[in-house]
C-alpha cells in the first residue's frame, strides 16, 4: 500500500508543480573579478593567483623593467608595466618584449567562462616602439600535455588585442584563444586542453623592434574579469 501510494504522491506533486507559477528566469551572477587593483595591493582578488610580476624576454631581463600601481581606468588603481627593450645588433630580429603576469597556485579551469574582459592602454615612450608592436593576452597551462604525451611546461594559448594609447575595454571570447602559430608543440585536446588547466595569465607586448633598435612602452591594465 505504501509502495503504491508513494509514486502516486510523487506524480501528484509533479502535476501540481507543473501547474504552479514559478519564476524560472536565470540570474546573471555578474563577472568574476580576477583583479581590479582598487584594494591597493598587488595580490589578485582571486586568492589562487599570486601577486603580479613582470619580466622582459628575448633577451630575458629585469633591467629597465618595472611594474606597479598606476591611476586606473575611471578607478583608483590599475597596474602598469614600463619596459625598455633592446634588440641586440646581431642581424636577427629577436621579437623582444615584456610581460605582466600572475601565476596560479593551482591550475584553474577556464572553460567554464565564456569571456575574458579587461581594460588596457599601450603608450609608446622614448625611444618609441614601432607602430606595429603587438599586445597579446596569453593564458599559460604549464601542466597541460602535448600531443606526444609529454608535459613541456610552457604551453599556452593566445589572443591578440587591438590596443590604443588610451583606455579601452576589451572582451575576448574564451573559445577564440588558440595555440600561438610560433609554438611548434601541439596541445593535447587543443586550446580547450589548455584552458582546462590555466596556470598563469600574461599581458605580453612584442615590440617588433628591428635588429639593433630599442624601444620603451608603458602598458596599463585594469579591471580583469571572467564572464
Amino acid at each position, binding site marked *: 500500500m505504501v509502495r503504491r501510494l508513494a509514486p502516486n504522491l510523487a506524480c501528484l506533486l509533479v502535476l501540481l508543480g507543473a501547474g504552479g507559477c514559478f519564476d524560472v528566469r536565470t540570474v546573471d551572477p555578474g563577472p568574476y573579478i580576477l583583479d581590479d587593483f582598487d584594494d591597493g595591493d*598587488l595580490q589578485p582578488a*582571486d586568492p589562487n593567483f599570486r601577486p603580479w610580476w613582470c619580466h622582459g624576454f628575448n633577451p*630575458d631581463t629585469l633591467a629597465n623593467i618595472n*611594474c606597479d600601481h598606476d591611476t586606473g581606468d575611471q578607478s583608483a588603481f590599475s597596474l602598469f608595466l614600463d619596459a625598455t627593450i633592446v634588440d641586440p645588433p646581431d642581424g636577427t630580429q629577436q621579437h623582444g618584449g615584456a610581460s605582466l603576469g600572475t601565476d596560479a597556485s*593551482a591550475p584553474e579551469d577556464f572553460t567554464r567562462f565564456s569571456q575574458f574582459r579587461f581594460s588596457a592602454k599601450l603608450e609608446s615612450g622614448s625611444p618609441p616602439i614601432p607602430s606595429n608592436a603587438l599586445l597579446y593576452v596569453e593564458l599559460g597551462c604549464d601542466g597541460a600535455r602535448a600531443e606526444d604525451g609529454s608535459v613541456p611546461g610552457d604551453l599556452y594559448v593566445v589572443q591578440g588585442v587591438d590596443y590604443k594609447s588610451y583606455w579601452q575595454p576589451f572582451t575576448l571570447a574564451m573559445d577564440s584563444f588558440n595555440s600561438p602559430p610560433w609554438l611548434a608543440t601541439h596541445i593535447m585536446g587543443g586550446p580547450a586542453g589548455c584552458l582546462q588547466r590555466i*596556470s598563469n595569465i600574461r599581458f605580453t607586448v612584442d615590440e617588433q623592434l628591428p635588429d639593433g633598435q630599442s624601444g620603451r612602452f608603458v602598458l596599463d591594465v585594469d579591471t580583469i574579469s571572467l564572464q
Partner: protein
Amino acid sequence: MTLRQILRVHVFVVPSLLACAATCSSGKASSDAASAGYTKIDDMEGTSGLIEWTSPPGMTPGFWWSATDCTESDRISPLPFFVNPYGWSYAALPIPHETFPGIASTHAARLRTISPLTGVWGANMGIDFAELPALAGGPIWPPPMGVDAAAPADGQPCIQGTSRDFNGGPVDLSSYSGITFWGMATMTGARTVRVQLNDRNTDPRGGICNPADPSNESNCYNGFRVEVAMTDSLTQYTVDLSSLQQDPSWGYRPDPDVLDLQHVYAMSFEVDLPNCSVSSNAKCAGGSPSVAFDFWIDDLYFVNK
C-alpha cells in the same frame, strides 16, 4: 565566490570553553582526563628546547629551532639555529593561559620579526621529532654546521641552514590522526601560518627529493601542509594529518601524493612571503614583497587514533 579549488583541508577551531564546560577542574587527575586521547609533543614550559614526546628506541628527543634566509638572519627572534645554536628559548605568555582544562600554560614557542623580511622565502620554527645517535660519539647539539655559519669567510655568501645540519631520523606517526595546538598572532603582521610536516619524500635527509646530490635541495621541502589563519587570542587548532597536501606547483611529489606517516622527520610553523612567480626570472610588481609577523604556538599534541 572563489575560483580556487576547495582543498579538503580540515582545520578545526575548538573553543576551549566548550571543552572546559565539560571537564574543567583543577588537579592532575582531571588534567590527564582532559588531555586523554592526545599525546603530548611539547608544552613549551621548560628551558631545554627539547620536545617531550617519547622518541623511538635508540633515538633522542628532537629540539626546537628557527630559520630564515641567512641574508636576513638578524631580522627574526629567536635567531636561526645556524647563527646561534644556543639561541632558542620559549617565550613567556603575556598572561597565563589554560589550554586543556586544568592545564595552565605560562610559556609558548614564539617566532617574530625584529624588522620585516624582504625578498626572501619567509621564516619558520619547528622541530625534528627525534634525533639519531650522534656520529662518532660526537654531540647531538649544536649541529656541526651551525658553528661555522655565523662567520662565513670574508667576501663569501652566508651559509644557509638545512635540515641536514641535524641528525634527525624518520619516526612512525601512523598511530596518530592529527595534531592539535594553541596559536595566536598579532593583528599588525601576517597571521596565516603554515603548518607543515616533512617526510622521507620531502626532507632532504630522506634522499628521495635529492637523489643524485644530497646538497641539491631545490626539489625538497615541499612538505605536506595546511595554512592556519590565526587570531590575536590563543585558540586551539586541530589539523587532520590525512588532509595535508603539497603545493602542486613545484618540488618532488610522491605518487600517491600523501604524507608517508611511517617516515616523518620534522614539523614546522612557517610564515611565507608573498611569492609572485614560480619563475625566478621575474620582478614582483611594486618591488620585493616584505612581511612582518609575531606568532605563538603553545601546547602541541598528537591526536591519537
